């Protein structure tokens, strides 16, 4: 390969001529030496040093001035550039005794080439007592004085240079190190690193590399600190400390960096992080003055916070006192005084911190049946239905009531006597309910002119009779199969709660701040800090010893991973939902307990009945055959988990529910069939299928799954796109035309009651709400309303199940067993709850704070 000549090598041929002269001189001298008498002095111009009698070194003649003038001096020789050193070719510098630099190809061995030669020469020298050196041996020994060099240019490049002319050799690696030094001086750490790495690859363990590495780490830490990346700077210093704890300036730099980190963390009010950095410093340099200073500061700050807490507590502001002591616990948890104060205050005002990935909207449509997870949680905290499904047992969701002591059917179920609880206990955050108030609230649902009219309720209930202060009789036109499900609606009328309700003015009451009264918790207005706060509507008695959760703070994280991180760090104590793939990771951690919800969440695609897919059965069948649901479920949600936390489903209600027909198998994945059916659908419709608009909620995994569904449909020639369902956006409704398919994830505890709003996408129970649905579905839903026995109910649901499967009115995707994770300091969470905040009023949060 042709060598590229550069300015570094000078003009081609010149060096070769010089070298040739030198060698000829050397060889001539050697030859003269060989043929001359041993004691005859040399008559050459230059007077080389007399060879030792024992060594018999030849006496070469130095080159002439003209000859030497063609080479550069060391000062004039420029250090090769970074690019040149990276790309090569490698070249060594031989500094001649004349002060000139000769550039040659890399010498071997390296380093210590001359020393090696001398060593070889020494070995061949005749020792005292050894026989006389032979001519061959002598010739061999003398040849060692000549270092074979290869010039970097010229036609004849192979020469031998007497070592006496060599003052020093600067190897290529040393050139690289010099350049590294220069780069580090310029704080060009990236290129310095590259060069150093290249050097290391070229010649491992080259002398001088290790110090350069240390310097590189140090310099880079300076650069990082200057660039506003103190954490990276700290990491670099730590790695340097690991290698060379005595590096000059390391200790001071540690102090500077940690100081910056501490200030930054505390400016963000992140004491935990500040302590984290402090610990890192202490781990390396326990007696560092910066560590001592900051420790003192934090301890002092903690004491001040404790003082403020005490003052607030004396003023009766328990919540503010708790805020201060929590901050103190975050600042310096090791301070002995913190624990007792914290325990006392946290036990009095029990605050539950929950990690979530979404928060409820400020304003919601009360008639929408599509509720985001956050909205569902909000309603669980702020609304109290007369009955609520609380557990799942023997294929049926069982209801409980916080209001009724018992409910007794009479007259073959045509009449039910409801007996209210006179008192609710100190944990109850709700005013007492009387029969008169309940009757009034129920009457509102019977009034067709009112805005709380419930057509289903009005069709079944024919009369209300107050029998006593806590006894109410309800007359039914037809005995309902599940009266509990029929009464599973929340109260909103304050007048229903009797005269003891505070600020009761009738209708939707508000307190002095304008906040709507809601029970058992009320939601505080958003403060813009990414948190939703709920406070107990009715505080527990001040002197009670048996206290329960008073406040719930939902903290929004960007993703489930971040939420889990928050849980591990102690920022939150409960995660109401974790991805199935992460459940197993909690099993080995004793500080948490993981609980599966009683009912799985069903994911499905629902078609708008008036839009294209809703009108074409062939298209709907094409869309379902195009989906590889097992693969989607495994890859998106289960993430390789083998714990059977998800499964395919064919109905919008859980597979464990009584109405699920196990003989109906999911549609298989058949892309060829899907393609064919899609083309048939286009023929039926008479036009190409317009892009389908898929509404999807703002949840990470759901959006990912929906995105992949879009891809699957596009493969069969059906274009589709996601439309945003961000927080605050409108939920889909059948009256709107701006969506074609809705991706929903729902829990359906009782399809007898919940299937109607689910399909009609509205909370209205008037039959007009079903006008958009097919006639057969409308009739079946009405029959479901009227069903009177379990057998018929099951048959009807099985029939609906078959019809959904055949008509593909919706595409059930899969159901996932969701779990929540809670720290073990939370007590009284029911076993296998159906909802995240089930029985929240009875929960207890034992005092705990993270020491990390």
């Amino acid at each position, binding site marked *: 390969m042709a060598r590229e000549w550069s300015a570094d090598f000078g003009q081609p041929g010149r060096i070769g001529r010089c070298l040739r002269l030198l060698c000829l001189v050397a060889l001539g001298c050697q030859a003269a030496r060989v043929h001359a008498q041993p004691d005859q002095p040399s008559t050459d111009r230059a007077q080389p040093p007399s060879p030792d009698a024992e060594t018999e070194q030849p006496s070469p003649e130095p080159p002439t001035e003209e000859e030497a003038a063609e080479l550069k001096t060391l000062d004039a020789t420029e250090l090769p550039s970074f690019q040149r050193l990276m790309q090569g070719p490698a070249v060594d510098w031989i500094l001649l005794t004349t002060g000139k630099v000769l550039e040659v190809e890399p010498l071997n061995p390296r380093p210590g080439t001359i020393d090696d030669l001398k060593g070889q020469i020494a070995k061949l020298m005749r020792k005292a007592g050894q026989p006389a050196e032979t001519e061959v041996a002598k010739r061999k020994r003398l040849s060692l004085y000549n270092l074979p060099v290869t010039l970097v240019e010229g036609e004849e490049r192979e020469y031998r240079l007497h070592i006496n002319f060599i003052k020093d050799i600067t190897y290529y690696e040393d050139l690289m190190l010099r350049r590294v030094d220069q780069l580090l001086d310029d704080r060009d750490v990236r290129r310095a690193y590259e060069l150093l790495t290249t050097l290391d690859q070229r010649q491992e363990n080259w002398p001088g590399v290790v110090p350069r590495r240390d310097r590189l780490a140090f310099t880079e830490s300076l650069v990082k600190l200057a660039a506003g990346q103190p954490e990276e700077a700290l990491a670099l210093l730590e790695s340097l400390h690991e290698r060379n704890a005595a590096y000059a300036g390391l200790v001071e730099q540690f102090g500077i960096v940690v100081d910056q980190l501490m200030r930054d963390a505390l400016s963000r009010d992140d004491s935990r992080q500040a302590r984290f950095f402090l610990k890192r410093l202490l781990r390396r340099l326990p007696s560092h003055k910066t560590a001592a200073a900051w420790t003192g500061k934090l301890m002092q700050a903690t004491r001040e916070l404790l003082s403020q807490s005490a003052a607030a507590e004396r003023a009766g502001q328990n919540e503010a006192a708790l805020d201060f002591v929590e901050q103190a616990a975050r600042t310096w948890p090791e301070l002995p005084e913190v624990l007792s104060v914290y325990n006392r205050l946290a036990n009095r005002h029990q605050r539950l911190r929950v990690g979530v990935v979404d928060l409820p909207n400020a304003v919601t449509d009360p008639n929408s049946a599509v509720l985001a997870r956050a909205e569902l949680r909000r309603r669980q905290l702020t609304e109290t239905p007369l009955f609520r499904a609380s557990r799942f047992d023997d294929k049926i969701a069982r209801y409980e009531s916080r209001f009724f002591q018992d409910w007794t059917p009479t007259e073959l179920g045509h009449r039910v006597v409801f007996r209210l609880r006179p008192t609710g206990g100190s944990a109850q955050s709700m005013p007492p309910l009387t029969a008169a108030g309940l009757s009034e609230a129920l009457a509102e649902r019977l009034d067709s002119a009112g805005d709380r009219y419930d057509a289903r309720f009005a069709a079944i209930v024919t009369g209300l009779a107050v029998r006593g202060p806590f006894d109410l009789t309800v007359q039914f036109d037809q005995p309902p199969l599940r009266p509990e499900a029929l009464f599973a609606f929340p109260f909103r009328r304050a007048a229903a709660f009797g005269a003891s309700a505070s600020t009761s003015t009738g209708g939707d009451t508000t307190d002095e701040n304008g906040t709507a009264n809601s029970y058992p918790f009320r939601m505080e207005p958003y403060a813009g800090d990414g948190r939703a706060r709920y406070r107990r509507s009715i505080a527990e008695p001040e002197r009670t010893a048996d206290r329960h959760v008073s406040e719930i703070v939902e903290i929004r994280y960007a993703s489930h991973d971040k939420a889990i991180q928050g849980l591990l760090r102690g920022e939150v104590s409960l995660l109401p939902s974790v991805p199935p793939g992460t459940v197993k990771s909690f099993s080995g951690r004793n500080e948490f307990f993981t609980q599966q919800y009683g009912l799985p969440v069903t994911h499905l695609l629902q078609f708008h009945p*008036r839009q294209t897919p809703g009108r074409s059965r062939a298209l709907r069948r094409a869309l379902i055959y195009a989906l590889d649901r097992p693969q989607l479920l495994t890859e998106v949600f289960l993430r390789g988990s083998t714990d059977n936390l998800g499964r395919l489903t064919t109905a919008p209600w859980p597979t464990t529910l009584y109405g699920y027909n196990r003989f109906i198998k999911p549609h298989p994945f058949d892309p060829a069939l899907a393609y*064919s059916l899609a*083309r048939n659908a286009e023929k039926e419709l008479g036009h190409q299928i317009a892009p389908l608009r898929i509404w999807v909620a703002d949840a990470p995994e759901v959006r990912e799954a929906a995105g992949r569904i879009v891809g699957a449909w596009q493969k069969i020639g059906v274009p589709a796109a996601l439309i945003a369902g961000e927080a605050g956006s409108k939920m889909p409704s059948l009256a709107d035309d701006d969506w074609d398919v809705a991706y929903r994830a729902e829990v359906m505890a009782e399809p007898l009651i919940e299937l109607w709003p689910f399909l009609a996408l509205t909370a209205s129970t008037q*039959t007009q709400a*079903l006008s958009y649905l097919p*006639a057969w579905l*409308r*009739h079946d839903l*009405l029959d479901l309303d009227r069903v009177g026995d379990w057998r018929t109910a099951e048959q009807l649901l099985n029939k609906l199940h078959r019809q959904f499967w055949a*008509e593909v009115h919706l595409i059930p995707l899969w159901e996932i067993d969701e779990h929540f994770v809670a720290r073990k300091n939370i007590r009284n969470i029911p076993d296998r709850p159906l909802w995240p905040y089930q029985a929240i009023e009875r929960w207890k949060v034992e005092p705990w704070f993270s020491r990390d």
Partner: protein
Amino acid sequence: MPRSIDRLHSKPHPATGSLAFVAALLFVAPLAGADPPAHEISLELRPYRVQIDLAYASAPDFDGASGALVQSDFGDCLERVAGSLWQTSIRANAGIRLAGVDPLQRLRPEDLERPALAADLDKLYLLSVEPAGAGIRIAGREWDTATSQLGAMQIVTLPDRRETAHCLMKLLQSLFRPVATIEQSKGGPLRLRARGGALAPHDESWQALREGMLFEAYYRYLNQEHAVERIQQIPWTYLTAGRVEQGVADGTVTSGLRAALSTRRRRVEVVALGVSRQVDSTRLTLVTRPPTRRPLGGVEVELAADSQPSDAPSTPPAEGAGSGRFVTDRKGQVLLRAAADATKPMWLFVRNGQNLLARIPFVPGLHADELLELPDDTLRLEVEGHVAQLQSELVDTVARRAVLATLARQRAKAREWPDVDEFMRQLAAGPKAAVFVADLSGIRVHGLQAARAQKDRATELRVRRLCDDMAKLISDYLEEDKLRELRDEIDELKKIAEEDDAAENALKSGQPPAKGRRDQPTRKSGANPPEAVPPAKTPPAGAAF
């Protein structure tokens, strides 16, 4: 109280055949039960014999002279406006009827059906006058003796008591429903002859017959003595008066019956009673026919001005509109608000899915409640649902067959025989027509049996038709001939391939190739080529189904 009306359909109802229809004659039998005089005055020149019963509330305003004054003024008003149209007698506080809205509301037709009353009167008006705060509330109802119809109550509240007489007169006008006879010649136009139609009242607005006036029709069944034995309204039938001449007008019939006014009747009189909007809305109840009378909830009801059903998507009606699409509630009821123009009947369509159950003329606001009996469509819907499920499976099977056939052909042309064999195996393993036919038979037998048990001939016919259509689909799209042709085609391609291989081997070994099938004219496979050219691995469009 709802007005019960037998179930009607656009097709002649067999049940109506049980009624005794008598051919209507050109002449009209006398309306009254008395023997007609020899020189009878034509109906249009006969005034109405009207009795007005005024019931005053016990109050100083109406006792004594003030009441008499009101009555006198009232009479004068009537005289001034009605003129010769009415022969009126006014009685105050006669009988034991109390004044007030409630007693009027509680009145029933049977309380007023008296032969003597019918003989003497044409119209009886029951009016009530009572104080209402600082004003007066007057209420009234009309009893028509010719049709034995008690009209809906109307109430007027007036602040100024001095307007009592005038308001009474106005109330009467709004209550007044003229009576007419219907004359229909065979193949000729229908004519309405209104009582007093040729008499000119002083106030034109009191004319008994005006163009555009709407009438309901009634049969009066007479006995041998020509006394009225029974009166029956002709359901869902309205007559609209055309241009009026001397009290006689052409009538346009709008009816949900195919032959609403039959011309072959004996001892049956057909009488028309004028209508006016009486209430703001009508509650229509849909039930199945007796004996079940199950409410038909979830059924679509459309009210339109046009007699042809629209294809517009179902939308809730706009506020205040008289037309629109509705869905009956759980009790089979729907509230239909009265249109602005109460003289023009609208059209009511009742649908259950794609099936039109009824198409009848309807005037919302005419009566407070109406009842419509319809056939029980549940069985048809159930059968349709089963057939739809079977159809879905058929669609899948046919599409899958088409895909497999195309893939087999593609692989055969590429000579990938293992794939071909697999596809053919899958084709052979797929459901056959016989399976679908067996399933369909089960649906058919069950449906027909149920329809016969209900004696529902119409549903039986529908079930039969549904199943026949489905059977045709099965036979058209799952015929085995196509599979056989495909198999033959594949076999041929295989043999050609084998011969080609043999020829190639022969060439290599230097032997002359044997004459093979390639040299013979190819037999037409008869299989349809794909209509579209798809990408490589995807099936073509144009599946057989």
